[in-house]
């Protein structure tokens, strides 16, 4: 059947080019939409891991997988200005509002009381890594050693090239919050913050600063790199606090 919108190209051959272009644009639009929808459907249908994690509940009553997240099987490198990754030259300054600030090297860090904890991490871009086994030193241990003053309310994670991220003291010194150097028994890769990164698992993962150089305790909050660029200051994944 003849398309009623089709011009009579036999009588008006000069319209052929315009008609061909219109057909091409329509075909391209339909093809693009089909591919995008198909890709989305494949991604949703094949995401069994996320379905399972959504069905689980944590001990605090929250879902294992926060809203808007999908599960991955390994960490994804999210960029950033890398540190040198060298354990030999690593130094961590623990300072700010504390009576006994100190600087510790990598070997010294390994001599402090170690913990190994299963923790889930959630990236603001939408992926989560569930059940990673992280090893390190609790920030609470560092705080105790530095004799943090009572008026401290926030922790500022300081990292290579001036990167900072802030977190409330209570969340940064929670049981699973630590400075970590191993994931699942392996050393952190450079792109994941080697040799040592922060870990505050109950906040979006950018708070867990890579290539860590310092932990600073402060009284008043100091929004960090991403927090001053439109991202949430608190960053609770269960409240989807992604943006400011």
């Amino acid at each position, binding site marked *: 059947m003849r398309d009623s919108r089709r011009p009579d190209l036999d009588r008006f051959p000069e319209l052929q080019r315009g008609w061909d272009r219109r057909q091409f644009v329509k075909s391209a639009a339909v093809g693009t939409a089909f591919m995008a929808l198909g890709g989305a459907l494949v991604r949703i249908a094949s995401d069994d891991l996320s379905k399972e994690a959504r069905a689980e509940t944590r001990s605090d009553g929250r879902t294992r997988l926060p809203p808007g997240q999908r599960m*991955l099987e390994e960490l*994804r*490198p*999210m*960029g950033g*200005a890398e540190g040198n*990754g*060298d*354990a*030999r030259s690593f*130094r961590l*300054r623990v300072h*700010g*509002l*504390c*009576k*006994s*600030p*100190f*600087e*510790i*090297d*990598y*070997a*010294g*860090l*390994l*001599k402090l009381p170690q913990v190994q904890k299963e923790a889930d991490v959630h990236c603001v*871009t*939408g*992926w989560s890594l569930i059940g990673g086994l992280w090893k390190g030193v609790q920030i609470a241990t560092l705080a105790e050693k530095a004799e943090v003053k009572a008026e401290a309310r926030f922790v500022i994670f300081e990292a290579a090239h*001036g990167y*900072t991220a802030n977190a409330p003291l209570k969340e940064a010194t929670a049981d699973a919050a630590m400075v970590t150097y*191993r994931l699942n*028994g*392996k*050393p952190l*890769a*450079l*792109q994941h913050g*080697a040799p040592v990164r922060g870990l505050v698992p109950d906040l979006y993962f950018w708070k867990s600063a890579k290539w860590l150089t310092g932990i*600073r305790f*402060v*009284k*008043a*909050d*100091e*929004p960090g790199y991403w*927090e*001053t660029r*439109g991202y*949430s*200051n*608190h960053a609770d994944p269960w*409240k*989807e*606090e*992604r*943006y*400011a």
Partner: protein
Amino acid sequence: MPEVAEAVVGQTPPSHPATRPPGTGATIKKRWRAWLRAIHRDIGYLAVGFTVLYALSGIAMNHIDDWDPNFHASEQTLHIAPIPDDLSDAEATKRIAAAAGLTGKIDDVFRAGDEVRLTFASGSKVTAIGDTVTVQVRRDRVFFRAADWLHATRGKQAWKFIADAYAVLLLYLAISGIFMIKGRLGLRWRGATLIVVGLAAPIGYLVLSGGPGAQRTERVAARPGEVDPPRPPKPSTDGITPLPPDDDVSPGRK
């Protein structure tokens, strides 16, 4: 061509308005669209390299949670007999490198706790922890690493201004594009329709998603701050060096 003939012979030019040479205003009025198109064309040529760089790196980084646009990274885990603490560095290195199957030059051997870390000149890192050896190898994706660095990584100096200049050129391309063609194919119909469609995409997304303020939370405003002065390294005991109290722990410090 009587006017030309008269001019050639040096006679007084005719006083009739239609025969006067056109003034600057008239020339601009007559030629502006042609100039707009010509400048659009030339800036388009200038923008090719920038646009390819920014577009490809933008797509690459947009999907950073699906792939690593900067590096091919691989990690391999092997098992060996645990390295005894009292084994010499040379012997430990020999055993670990042999297990990893790497023979290149080793830049650094570092031992701490139960770890032995080897850094090869090639950039590969091998870490032995107990009986587990992890080999981490990374290679640049040359184009994307450079393009991503130009596109996004902070801390660049002059490039910031070059990128600003490119942004201004893009603005010219966008705005001049509106006026390049007149009539139904221009702003009067097709152009206007497509501009509305183009604007509808971001506006529609903002409306449907709720925008960046959809999950607004309380935040404390950033305050101007200072940078910590560098401190000289001090001798350490057990890896721990006491630090003097910070001089300034006021809220303003960043």
